[in-house]
């Protein structure tokens, strides 16, 4: 299993809570310096996986190696070589920015002769220079996230785990945060990040889609968009939309229908054959039809298609 090119190697990793299988025998290899996205709905097993990889949860069975250390047998070595940002902001709100940084520098045993330089670096990176004495709890969400990231990487870990790092952060702050992530990856850090934002998934080098504890697709964003879609995608402009979705969902040969903005996305087996059928089907039900054409799926379409394929009728929360 030891592998010079891989930072994270997961083999048959299983986690059960009682009868509930949270993570179902997954296998993954994550390369050094890769930004790896772990995408899935709430409760799919993202956080459970990340917590096992950080040694916070004991796997029921299977193995995982992080930065060359076994998470089950050498959790302390794993922890010295990773940075972890939990889903919920979990620095100390009642401490000052600098106090949080010093705390984590201490916890990661940053050597005294590097301490000043690392703290400066973290403040610089988190764009918090001059804000050292603010109470952490008073910072805006985006600043808090950057501070949390700064604290998690004070010891220059080769691998970082970010569990939904940008949830509840405004889009601009989210964008800045991703710039940071890419900056670190350029320096050779492996980033394992979970998200349920589709546009964030596009920023990743590779993605794994996890659903109900199982990895249902794996690849680069463009590979996923090209290969993983079950069937083909049609864009349908029509009025009224709500009505059209309802009738199309029960139409023959339509695998799925959903509202996207002011049009519909329709999953069908064969786009060319379906276009005239859909037009007629809608007109017959006195729905005004505009443009109907084949389009390239986005990640969200892929995701909906994959998750409904393994569980039709299940709501996907984006």
């Amino acid at each position, binding site marked *: 299993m030891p592998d010079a090119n891989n930072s994270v190697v997961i083999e048959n990793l299983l986690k059960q*809570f009682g009868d509930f299988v949270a993570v179902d025998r997954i296998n993954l290899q994550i390369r050094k310096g890769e930004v790896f996205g772990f995408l899935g709905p709430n409760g799919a097993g993202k956080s459970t996986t990340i*917590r096992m990889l*950080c*040694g*916070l*949860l*004991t796997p029921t069975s299977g193995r995982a190696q992080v930065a060359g250390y076994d998470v089950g047998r050498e*959790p*302390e070595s794993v*922890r*010295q070589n*990773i940075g*972890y*940002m*939990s889903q*919920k*902001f*979990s*620095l*100390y*709100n*009642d*401490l000052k920015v600098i*106090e949080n940084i*010093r*705390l*984590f*520098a*201490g*916890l*990661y*045993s940053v050597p005294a002769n590097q301490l000043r330089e690392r703290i400066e670096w973290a403040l610089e990176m988190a764009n918090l220079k001059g804000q050292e004495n603010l109470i952490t709890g008073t910072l805006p969400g985006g600043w808090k996230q950057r501070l*949390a990231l700064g604290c998690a990487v004070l010891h220059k870990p080769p691998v970082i785990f970010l569990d939904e790092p940008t949830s509840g952060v405004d889009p601009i702050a989210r964008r800045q945060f991703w710039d940071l992530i890419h900056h670190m990856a350029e320096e050779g850090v492996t980033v394992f990040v979970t998200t349920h934002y589709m546009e964030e998934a596009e920023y990743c080098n590779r993605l794994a889609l996890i659903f109900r504890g199982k990895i249902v697709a794996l690849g680069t964003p463009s590979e996923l968009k090209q290969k993983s879609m079950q069937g083909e995608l049609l864009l349908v402009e029509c009025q009224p939309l709500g009505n059209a979705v309802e009738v199309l969902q029960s139409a023959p040969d339509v695998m799925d229908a959903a509202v996207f903005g002011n049009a519909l996305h329709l999953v069908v087996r064969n786009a060319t054959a379906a276009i005239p059928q859909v037009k007629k089907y809608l007109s017959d039900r006195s729905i005004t039809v505009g443009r109907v054409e084949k389009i390239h799926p986005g990640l969200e379409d892929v995701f909906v298609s994959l998750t409904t394929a393994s569980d039709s009728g299940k709501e996907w929360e984006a």
Partner: protein
Amino acid sequence: MSFTRFLAVARKEVVQILRDARSLIIVVIMPVILVLLFGYGVNLDLKGLPVYVYDRDGSQQSQDLLKRFQASAYFDVVRVVNDYAALARSLDDGHAKMGIVVPWDFSERLHEGRPVQVQALVDGSDDNTANVLIGYAQAVVQGYSSDIQLDWLRNRGQLAQPAVLSVETRTWYNEDLESSAFIVPGVLALVMSVIGAFLTSLTIAREWERGTMEQLISTPVTPAEIMLGKLVPYFIIGIFDVIVCALIAIYWFQVPFRGSFLTLLVSSAMFMVVVLSLGFFISVIAGSQLAASQIALLITFLPAFLLSGFLYSIEQMPIALQWITRILPARYYVSVLKKIFLKGTPTAMLYTDLVPLAVFTLVLAVLATRAFHKRLA
């Protein structure tokens, strides 16, 4: 065990205590308030209890008797009434704890050497006070009675004999029988229960509740470093508070301090480890601040308050309860406190308390270190 990591946790904890007004109040003000509260507020001595009298005789002798009541430190004759109804009312509305009725033929019967009874109506709603009142009243009346007998004998030319039997008492340890001397030393156990168990269980439960513990345990810090880092600041605070409380007891309430200060510190340190370990346990079991505070009150504060011998003497408890007190660390600590303060018992003779306390200290400290796992589930 890395000293850097321990120090990082401890420093963080101190900053948090200093920044949080509520913890500061508990740490600095609460101990002082508790000592003052128990020093002043809890007074088991009964003095100057209000008494109404209904003197139906109105003679020189009846006045002599009533003067003896007034002269006693235990009674305060606040009013003289002229009928039974007024006397009954005074007990009903609580203006008097006792009503004394002197019969109309009091002096006449005394003069004739016939037995006579003085009636005492006692408010029995507080049985302890009532019992004490009855005892004091009997003592006053008997004293008067034997003086009359002596007079009577003397008047008949017989040589007055001194009283045949009497008890010569000398009170040791708490010479003035001051409640505060009995109570205040035990307050130290209460203060430490609050600081040790209550406050620490809250701070740890808070970390789980807010998710900060998850971030903490994702770092290389070990369970022992987290535990020591969190507990050492509270240990120091606890010992500091013990010293403050002891000084207030000695210099403000004039509680005698006759034993060894070192023994006080050592036994306090042991008890502090006991309550800190309990607090640590509680936080592991509880998971939420609310549950932690309630469990802490239930298993440390209340036993220290009710069953440790702090206020209520263990010898007076039912046998079953006396056995239960044996598994309470607070019992041994309170016992040590009282012996050190009042009796000045040499440290070597405290082994009946110090040995059990040391056993609790060791066992609980070991169990606490085992209880904490750096795992979420």
